[in-house]
């Protein structure tokens, strides 16, 4: 096998496994993290298939989520806020401050 083929299978299986983790995990924080891994390895697969433009767009559009509608980064913030994925001690404190952030960002 060539180097490209080996890398393709590595990134392909990582993408599949982490996609499985996204739906199978109970902790939403892990799901969000696994989703980032999925997107990154998908982008690597696109790059290996010879389309660097789509590979980069994959990261920019989903990873960066500049429009703040989709994007795992937003998802992560939202989960910290809504699902209380963090420890109880800091939860209420952060919830209150994050509300202010959201209004600030808008």
């Amino acid at each position, binding site marked *: 096998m060539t180097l490209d083929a080996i890398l393709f299978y590595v990134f392909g299986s990582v993408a599949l496994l982490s996609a499985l983790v996204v739906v199978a995990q109970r902790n939403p*924080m892990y799901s969000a*993290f696994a989703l*980032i891994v999925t997107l*990154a390895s998908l982008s690597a697969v696109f790059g290996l298939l010879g389309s*660097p*433009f789509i590979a*980069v*767009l994959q*990261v*920019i559009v989903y*990873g*960066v989520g*500049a429009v*703040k509608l989709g994007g795992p*980064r937003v998802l*992560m*913030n939202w989960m*910290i806020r809504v699902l209380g994925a*963090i*420890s109880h*001690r*800091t939860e209420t*404190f*952060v919830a209150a*401050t*994050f509300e202010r*952030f959201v209004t*600030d*960002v808008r």
Partner: protein
Amino acid sequence: VSATQEALLIAVIKVVVLFHLLLGLFSVMTWVERRVLAFMQFRLGPNRTGPLGILQPVADGIKLFFKEEVIPDGAHKWLFVAAPGLAVVTAFLAMAVVPWGGTVTLFGREVSLQLAELDVGVLFVFAVSSLSVYGIVLAGWASNNKFTLMGGLRSAAQMFSYELALGLSWVGLILLAGSFRITDIVAYQAGGIWNWNFIWQAPAFVVYLVAGTAEANRTPFDLPEAETELVAGFHTEYSSMRFALMQMAEYVHMITIAALGANLFFGGWLSPVPFLPDSPAWFVLKLFGGLFFFIWLRGTLPRFRYDQLMDFGWKVLLPVAMLNVMLTAAAVVLFP
């Protein structure tokens, strides 16, 4: 050896050289920053270790190596350990596509002073540098500490607001040069200082300067680690070499922003006047100019308040960048 093996060998050598160059630059920068900042504040700064204190980074490094690594109670072990690694990897990755010079002839071979010449060079930098915020957010979350979490959240919100302006500030250059490749954008500026982009794309340059400072989390945009409110922000709980990794990621990010600025707006390795030859030395000069500018800012400006930061990003920088893109696009169409 076959042609592919040779190409692979050259690539590996380039990776090793660039990596160590960046590591060296990082450690020198920690010393330079402390010294320059000290002089700006009428102090001396670290001047005891070696001549002029130049060995201070070595002493710091040795000290950090031998410190105890602390993982706080209730922290998420895996992510706590992974976060600094993620931050460093994304910071270094962006430098891979930034050219340091044209081509040089070494051992009878043409070698380009750039690790990977991607067709989507600028976009690649954009994608990778914006991924770097995950390292910070994860570090903030995994530490199980309210100050780190606040730092992480601030960092995420700040990146949202300034990334857009940063990306838009490059669009004008891309339109002018007609290419995403950084080398093409540099080549477009050939002919002397009056052809450089910082004159013809002055609004974009100002936006890049401000948004780049915010992107590198430098003063006056260092809200994620505001000492007065957040102890040390997202890296409060880190100690020993993990703390050093966090610092490294930050400095490499700053170097990336400065190097990219030198390439995109100051003609990279091109000489400012036609009668002097182009050389990588020009690039290094411009790079250090950019780095000095960052330190200068830190010695001069106080920190923004959070709502001011958001207002400025969305209500000033973004419209200016948009307007610049529109004007440039119109100019490219009307005066080809």
